[in-house]
């Protein structure tokens, strides 16, 4: 991983989702780590910061909302993109209140994720330039 | 309660096993899974005696692995579930023998819910269930076991049905409701509180005598399909069928409802 490379953490309890996203984002030049359990994801996030987090909301036994709250508390500059298979008005609203950058309802095209990640990258770079 | 559950490596068995395991959280039961491996044609062409016995033993061992893996995957942590019995032979005959000799209170099998009732009737009127005197629980879907609906009609022997139900489920921590069914072809249902209905009142008294206060009592009139669908909130519909005699509209309700059905034989 080089200094300029953006790092992305993906959390979704469905391996099919992480398997699909990882190679497509790596192809775009990002450093990607994937997790299917929030406990592992949060442990890893504590070890090393990630620029971008992509997380599902409804997962078996865990709450993606709690995970993103913790991420934002630990590192507010991390941009969070929510992906959800069970979208509701409340979850969309709550996600934005917690400061997520984008909210994508499943099913999504890879191009949608790429656009959201590009948006996050742009924002991170702009912030860095300001500082 | 001694329960015999018929297991095959299929969806219906997966549902029935998971369902009975849910019940075992609320009712104390001993669950005996059983699988009957039907030898395909030619299996016994080697003749009789020890050759046949050895072949049967091999078949049992092979099948046992498969069914035990299935049981582990579907019901790894099921209260009251014991080791599977594997038999070789004609499915109906072997099950019949096991039920007759095993002091079972209930026979359970998976039977997927079906749009047309013919599959239900094929089973109910089939030679196997016809010979059975033990109550049969047909599990059509995996529903939460929280509510039980006892379905009554004018032909039913209430004094036989309720004690039979209580023998099995008296101590179950579930809500029990009484539903008295009147046939009509109407797609709209008519409902009243059943206070004028003697059979409902008798069923209520029999339950109350054992300290069970029905959560809901209603007399309902409508087409079997509509009433069957309304029973969807139930965790189990209990009723009584007569193996002989004419088909009654209540059996159409049991055929069309997608929830598990406990049939007590008249």
């Amino acid at each position: 991983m080089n200094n300029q490379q953006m790092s992305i953490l993906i959390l979704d309890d469905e391996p099919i989702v992480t398997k699909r996203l990882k190679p497509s984002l790596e192809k775009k030049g990002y450093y990607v780590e994937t997790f299917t359990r929030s406990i592992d994801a949060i442990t890893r996030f504590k070890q090393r910061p990630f620029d971008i987090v992509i997380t599902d909301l409804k997962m078996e036994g865990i709450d993606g909302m709690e995970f993103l709250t913790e991420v934002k508390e630990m590192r507010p500059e991390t941009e969070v993109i929510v992906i959800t298979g069970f979208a509701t008005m409340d979850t969309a609203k709550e996600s934005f209140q917690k400061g997520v950058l984008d909210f994508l309802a499943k099913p999504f095209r890879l191009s949608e994720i790429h656009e959201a990640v590009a948006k996050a990258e742009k924002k991170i770079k702009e912030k860095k330039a300001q500082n | 309660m001694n329960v015999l559950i018929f297991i095959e490596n299929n969806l219906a068995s997966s549902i029935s096993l998971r369902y009975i395991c849910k019940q075992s959280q609320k009712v104390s039961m001993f669950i005996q899974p059983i699988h009957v491996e039907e030898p395909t044609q030619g299996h016994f062409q080697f003749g009789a005696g020890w050759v046949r016995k050895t072949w049967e033993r091999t078949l049992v061992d092979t099948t046992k692995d498969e069914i035990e893996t299935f049981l582990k995957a579907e019901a790894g942590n099921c209260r009251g579930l014991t080791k599977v019995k594997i038999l070789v032979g004609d499915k109906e005959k072997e099950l019949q023998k096991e039920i007759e000799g095993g002091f079972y209170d209930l026979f359970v099998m998976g039977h997927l819910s079906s749009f047309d009732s013919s599959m239900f009737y094929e089973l109910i009127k089939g030679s196997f269930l016809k010979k059975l005197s033990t109550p049969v629980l047909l599990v059509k879907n995996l529903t939460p076991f929280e509510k039980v609906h006892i379905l009554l009609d004018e032909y039913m022997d209430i004094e036989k049905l309720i004690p039979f139900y209580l023998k099995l489920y008296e101590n179950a921590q579930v809500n029990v409701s009484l539903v008295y069914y009147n046939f009509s072809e109407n797609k709209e249902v008519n409902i009243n509180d059943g206070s004028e209905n003697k059979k409902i009142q008798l069923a209520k008294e029999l339950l109350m005598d054992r300290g069970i206060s029905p959560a809901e009592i209603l007399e309902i009139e409508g087409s079997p399909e509509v009433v069957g669908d309304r029973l969807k909130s139930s965790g189990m519909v209990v009723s009584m069928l007569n193996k002989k005699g004419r088909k009654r509209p209540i059996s159409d309700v049991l055929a069309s409802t997608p929830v598990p059905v406990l049939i007590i034989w008249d």
Partner: protein
Amino acid sequence: MRILVAVDTNPYSSYVVNEVGKMAINTWSDITLLGILDPKKSTGKVEESDLAKSLLDFREIITSYYPKGECPYSREEIKSFSQIKDDVYVATGKGGLKTLKIVIRKGINPVQEILNQADEDESTLIVLGCNKTNKCKWDDMDVPSKVANQASCSVLVVKENKTPKQIVCCLDQEYITQNSLELINQMVTLYNAELKIVGVAEGESLKMRVENTMKNLFMYYLKQDIPLWLEVINSSVFPNFVHQMSQDNLIAIWLGPKSFLKKFFPDEKITTLISDAPSSVLLLR
């Protein structure tokens, strides 16, 4: 999720927009509102057409679902359309977290124009409406059923503003895509409806592949903690079943190119299903 909403100026299109509005408030999808102008009938400026006025109204309807300050789409007033290529005009407001754009395409074949737009947008879902009293046609053209038959993505044909009691999914033995499952999940969440998975049995028992698919779905929804009804039907009663189920429910049918259900629902039967079903139909791909 990217939704392409194909509309015309008939009243059923406002049903569609309302349904999409409900979907959008949950999913914050990117939305394209598409109208097709017949070049022979419209010679004036695109923005002066009745269609453009309807599309602007529909945009208002979708944004009106959100309280002030909470709308993910731009509410900026649209004054003009820009021509982005031959016979394609686009209007969109500035800003907004999500895209809500209006597209007008000029063409004599509305079906082809809708399919082209869906390909260009990489749409996840095409939503279009029709009236159940006129065999689901758009001015005597079989637009909804042809789009449903030919689209490469899923298609929802909306008949009326009615909340379905159940989402009834008729299973194919083919591989069930993750996308189609996710679309089903969004529909179940949106309508707070029950989910029923139906396996079509041929002859005595369920075909092994259908049963395997049903079992996989059963396990999937068990893991998701979503209540699920399973049902089997004999192939001989399948058309009856679909007709009966479509009275109060949303029928969802998986129709891949090699679909086993294609036997029961060839293109002409899909047309019949769409034209005869009293409620909405979702074709999954």
